[in-house]
């Protein structure tokens, strides 16, 4: 009986993955609402759970593909693999209007480019400080400091190892969570109380869930202004990190 269930789930692995991820999302959003009063966005908690499951899977199987090495959860590898991931990421560009960026003005555009660049350099400096010398590794970790999406997309196109990609996701996740927590605490200090600074903030920090949750905790009326620039951030990062920024890192190392 048990064997037949296991083989069934194994056979329909992608479907099983949908169910597992759906359940994870439910738990994460429940925790977000009831334990953090919405301060920590459900998506961040869901990714933490994902990484934790990958750790458990890796330790228990000794494999290198996280939870997807466990037969029952092999579908996670397909669902979270490069093909569907890139399709979903490209789909997020749908509905983006370039007219919006005009509203943000020149300062917004400068904030966007500077935001991607500063985060990338910060990540690169830390990676180099920890002894990474391969330009692919440095670029992937640096891209992770841009957002937890730019990191793995960059890592996958450059052929980084899963270990380094995991680090890049974690770096982006730390950034997103810290933004959620630190934004309301530092808002007064950095003058985050008006539409213009909110747009600049969105462009400089960019990690969408962090920006939205952080601004919501500061002043909910600022959310649309921050989102206006943050929408472009991941896309700009995906465009710059594996291309110009990688070439720059490769030229130096």
């Amino acid at each position, binding site marked *: 009986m048990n064997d037949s269930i296991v083989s069934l789930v194994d056979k329909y692995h992608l479907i099983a993955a*949908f169910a597992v*991820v759906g359940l*994870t*999302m439910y738990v994460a959003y429940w925790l977000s609402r009831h334990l953090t009063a919405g301060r920590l966005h459900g998506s961040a908690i869901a990714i933490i*759970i*994902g*990484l*934790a499951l*990958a750790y458990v899977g*890796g*330790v228990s199987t000794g494999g*290198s593909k*996280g939870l*997807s090495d466990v037969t029952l*959860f092999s579908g*996670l590898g397909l669902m*979270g693999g490069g093909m569907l991931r*890139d*399709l*979903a*990421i*490209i*789909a997020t560009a*749908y509905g983006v*209007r370039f007219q919006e960026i005009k509203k943000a003005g020149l300062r917004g555009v400068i*904030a966007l480019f500077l935001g991607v660049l*500063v985060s990338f350099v910060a*990540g690169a400096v*830390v990676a180099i*400080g920890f002894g990474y010398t391969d330009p692919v590794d440095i670029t992937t*970790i*640096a891209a992770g400091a841009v957002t937890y999406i730019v990191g793995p*997309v960059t890592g996958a*196109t450059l*052929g980084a190892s899963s*270990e*380094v990609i*995991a*680090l890049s*996701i*974690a770096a982006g996740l*730390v*950034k997103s969570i810290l933004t959620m927590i*630190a934004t309301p605490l*530092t808002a007064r200090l950095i003058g*985050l109380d*008006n*539409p213009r*600074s909110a747009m600049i*903030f969105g462009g400089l*920090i960019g990690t969408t869930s962090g920006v939205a949750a952080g601004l919501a905790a500061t002043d909910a*009326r600022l959310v*649309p202004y921050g989102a206006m620039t943050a929408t472009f951030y991941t*896309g700009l990062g*995906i*465009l*710059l990190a*594996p*291309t110009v920024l*990688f070439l720059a890192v490769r030229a130096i190392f």
Partner: protein
Amino acid sequence: MVIYGVALLAGCMLAGLIIGDVLGQLLGIDANLGGVGIAMLLLIFVTGYLKDRGKLPETTESGINFWNAMYIPIVVAMAASQNVAAAFSGGMVAILAGVLAVVLGLALVPVLTGKKVDDASPLESAPTTPSGH
């Protein structure tokens, strides 16, 4: 039809990846240079063009919106299938990189905001006009 939206998305993705591949070869790098980013730009322009001409019915849109909505779940699945156990020892890199990025980003906000003028004055009361979002 829903499949038109999915096919449009797939078409943009393939075109973007091909361009990225060609770019990589031109520059002599064994990688896809910005293919995903190029695909995103293509999708924005193509759907924008179609929408302005009223050629993007709701069912077609829903084919794209489905994958848009699957983004976070797919990221969760991606996180769950990485080699986290091996990366665990290097966790400090991730923490420091993330922290430094946020600190620098926050510190630059007042620098770029500059002097307070009309649109940079604090929101004292609820906005009287809807912002359109």
